C-alpha cells in the first residue's frame, strides 16, 4: 500500500532525475527521502496517522 497522493516522477517540469522519485500530488513537490517512508508505509508508518499533508488534505485534526 502507499499514500494515494504519492506518485513517482522523474521530472517536475523544472528538474529531471535519472530515477523516478517520490512526488506528492498535494504539495506538487518531490518528497524528502525521510518522509517517503511515510508515503510508502514502510516501518509501520502510515500517511493517515503520520503525514501532516495527508491529514490536512483530508480535513483531519490531530486529536481525531
Amino acid at each position, binding site marked *: 500500500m502507499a499514500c494515494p497522493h504519492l506518485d*513517482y516522477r522523474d521530472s517536475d517540469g523544472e*528538474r529531471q532525475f535519472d530515477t523516478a522519485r517520490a512526488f506528492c500530488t498535494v504539495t506538487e513537490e518531490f518528497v524528502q527521502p525521510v518522509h517517503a517512508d511515510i508515503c510508502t508505509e514502510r516501518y509501520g508508518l502510515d500517511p493517515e496517522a503520520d503525514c501532516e499533508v495527508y491529514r490536512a488534505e483530508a480535513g483531519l485534526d490531530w486529536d481525531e
Partner: protein
Amino acid sequence: MTYDEYLDGKPVVVTAALTGGIQGKEAHPDLPETPDEIAAAAAAVEAAGAAVVHLHARRDNGERAFSTERFQAVTDAVRDATDDVIVQHSTGGTAAPDALRAEPLRTDPAPEMASLDMGPMNRGRRLTSENTRDTIDGLHAEMRERGIKPELEVFNNGHLNESFRILDDLADPPYLNLIFGPGTLAPPSPANLQRMVDQLPERAEFNVIGFGPHQLPLTTQSLLLGGHVRVGLEDNSYLRKGELATNEALVERTVRIAEELGRPVASPAEARDLLGVESRR
C-alpha cells in the same frame, strides 16, 4: 580537548558527512546518493583534507536504505576511490526498526567507525528516532564485537548524561559528537557549546556539528577549544547565503580556517592515532 591543546597546535580531525538520510536531490541537485556519486565525493574531500567520511546508503530512487547490501556497495566504492580515509557508517535511522539499524555494521570489512545516537530526536509532527537505552546498548555491543570505534552522537545536553552512562565501557578516548541545531538538538550558541565542552570528561575527544548557518561559526569555535570538526552536505547545503555548497568546498573552507588558526589538519593515520581507531586499510 582544551584551549591549551589549541595553543599547542593539536591536529584537528575533519569529518565530511557526504549524504545523510534526510534530504535528497529535491533539496540539492548535487547531493551524492548513488555509490559512485558518494565515492567521487569521498575522493574529493579526502584530497581536500578530510580524514573521515560519514556514510549513509540510499535506494536507486534516493530513498533511505539500511541494508548491509546497500552499505556494502557504498563502502566498496568509497574504499576503491580513496587512499586512506577512515570509513564511518551511520547507524541512525528515524523510525527504522532496530534490526535494520545494525545492518550497516555488518559490511566486510566492517567500518572503522560508526555513529551511535545517544537518545531520542523528533522530526516533524510524528516522526521520532527513539534510540532507547536498549537500542544503544545493542548497537554498542555489536560495535565492540567488530572492533568498530563508536562516535557518540550527542543531540542535546541530556545526551551527555546518556553518554556518561556507558563511559566505562568505552575504549580511550571516548569520542563525543556535539550537535547543534533546531528542534531536539542543542540550541546553537557559542555559550552552549562552551558549557557542553566544560562538562566532558578529561579523557574524551569531541567533535562539533552545527546545522545550516551554525556550521561555520560553531565548527570554528571547536577549533579554538581543541575539538574536531564535521562539515558536509548532510548538515548544511550552503557555502554562504544563497550559494549551494559542495562537500569538497565545505572541507576546503574548514581546512583553510584551521590552518589560519594554527591547527594542523590530521591525516587519516594521525586521526586513527588520536581517536583510537583500528585501521582496516
